[in-house]
């Protein structure tokens, strides 16, 4: 038996810089059989490996129907991600996955969507939005709410502008601190919840970002009487194995890598109420 922990070789087939410290890598397994057998769902992640550096968990941002390559958007924060940023087309690295439980894209069909994102360009939610727009008829109204610390942190501004032009899509952008030319809102993401128009009884709320923001959004959604099982959270924790063995991502009775990274609020609410859990 081959251990689930051993990567396969993959090749960089495309790369683009998103911002000075963010980039995207399109990867393909060099073994065509491995590539052909590879399937994933929205919100799952892969482990990317560089020799002598180690592995990092990275969300998959391509569309599940795209079978020729697997796309990842990565921020340069540590030694592995900084060196992944130096890869060029044709370079080889290790890849294993997909892991975890992603967004409930089927369960959300026929409902209004509220997608709330905080922090620096949260790739998992951006790919989720693109996924929905490519299957627009299956979903109800879509509200996209993105909060950033500072207006300079907002990447992919053109995408937000393009999303806004779709029917039944509303985009709300807000920054804790906006500069002079910030045309949108300032303040927390929760400021929009009273006015946005969605069916509390038939909606799916997807939250991705810092846990402080998650707590605030969950509170606001409870006030709008959204059931806890209709609120999903994409969690982040340190991960080394990605298969529920190394223990590092344990959160309450869950391992984020195996049982998540997407959870319902009902599953996790008791463990999100305090910092440092």
């Amino acid at each position, binding site marked *: 038996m*081959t251990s689930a922990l051993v990567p396969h070789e993959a090749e960089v087939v495309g790369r683009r810089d998103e911002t000075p410290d963010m980039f995207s890598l399109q990867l393909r397994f060099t073994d065509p059989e491995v590539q052909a057998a590879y399937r994933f769902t929205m919100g799952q992640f892969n482990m990317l490996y560089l*020799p002598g550096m180690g592995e990092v968990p990275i969300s998959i941002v391509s569309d599940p129907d795209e079978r020729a390559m697997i796309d990842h958007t990565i921020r340069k924060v540590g030694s592995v991600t900084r060196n992944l940023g130096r890869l060029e087309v044709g370079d080889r690295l290790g890849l294993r996955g997909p892991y975890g439980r992603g967004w409930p894209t089927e369960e959300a069909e026929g409902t209004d969507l509220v997608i709330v994102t905080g922090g620096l360009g949260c790739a998992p939610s951006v790919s989720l939005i693109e996924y929905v727009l490519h299957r627009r008829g299956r979903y109800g109204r879509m509200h996209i709410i993105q909060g950033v610390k500072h207006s300079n942190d907002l990447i992919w501004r053109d995408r937000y502008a393009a999303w806004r032009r779709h029917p039944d899509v509303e985009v709300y952008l807000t920054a804790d601190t906006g500069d002079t030319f910030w045309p949108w809102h300032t303040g927390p993401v929760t400021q929009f919840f009273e006015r946005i128009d969605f069916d509390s009884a038939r909606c799916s709320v997807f939250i991705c970002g810092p846990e402080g923001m998650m707590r605030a959004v969950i509170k606001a959604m409870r006030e709008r009487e959204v059931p806890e099982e209709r609120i999903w959270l994409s969690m982040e924790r*340190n991960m080394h194995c990605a298969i529920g063995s190394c*223990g590092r991502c344990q959160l309450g009775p869950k391992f984020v890598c195996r049982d998540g990274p997407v959870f319902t609020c009902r599953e996790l609410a008791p463990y999100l109420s305090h910092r440092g859990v």
Partner: protein
Amino acid sequence: MKVRHFLARERLQSLIDRLVEAGYEVIGPRVRDHAILFEPLATVEQLPVGIIDDQAPGHYRLERTDSGRIFDWATGPQAIKPLTFAPRETLWRSERQPDGRLVFREQPPEAQPTAVIGVRACDLAALAVHDRHFLHDAHPDPHYRERRQNLFLVAVNCMRSAATCFCTATGDGPRAQHGFDLALSELDDGFVVEAHTQEGQAILDTLETTLASHDQLEQVEAGVERATRQQTRGLPEGSLPEMLQAAVAHPHWQSLNDRCLTCGNCTAVCPTCFCQTHLDELSLDGKTSEHGRQWGSCFDPDHSYIHGTVIRAERPQRYRQWLTHKFGTWVEQYGRSGCVGCGRCIAWCPVGIDVTEELEALSKAPDGENPP
């Protein structure tokens, strides 16, 4: 009821010999560095005759007595965890080819048949917990499985408890209940032996034994009863998962800030702690890289590091993480608590933090507040 035999003390060497003849490397308790450790064992003379352990919070000392018994110590710093969950091991290697390609080679799991003499009830309970974690999942761990399948376990029922023991409170001892091949109960002149597996019976059949007498069986009962009575530590009444969930913001956690060194000794000696750190080491020529894992600890700030932030940056948060997982959310994950009552974390904590006392304090309403 199992037939129980009596093996005279002077025949104990034959147990070691039969195990060696059956192809096992024999491991047993030996005194090394002033502690009882599980080490390779060839002769009964290497066993800790007359040695007992004096244990207390932050305290472990061996003492020599006039007794001829060899299993009157309660626990050493190790359970049998290192024999199944290696402290450090290579999982796979990557090799960079001259043309830039990467080749991955799995490190095949390796283990030789190993017989361990002197395994305690708490250690067996912990092993069952690890079996659940490492084997009963979508991705069974091949390295753990290989070593586990090669184990032959000779349990010893405890006739004496250390002051740190509380296995009666967790329901795991002092009598070995499951998961062993042979069990020994030590009397002054020999051992009552019972087999629990076919492999154990096969070894027992090769030993020169007599049927255990009624009197000998009564001495065993009395010994186990004595070990039970010697235990003074316990756990708070009621559901610990519910208590700990309710106590998430209890002011008592803050007191750990002045006591806990976050050294991770408790997680190293805990027989059920399974956390790992995976690491990658590049060879000097830069061509090959070894990817391995070693024991990790939730007391290490790096354990909860994500992109520039440590989630549990403060000491009390890390202690809370350990205690609430071990006694609380562990139950939902594995169907039982992660504590088997061995008391090692109490003895080997350099500042003597006692989990049973911490749980007691957390189960009480904070000072000045009424109970909920």
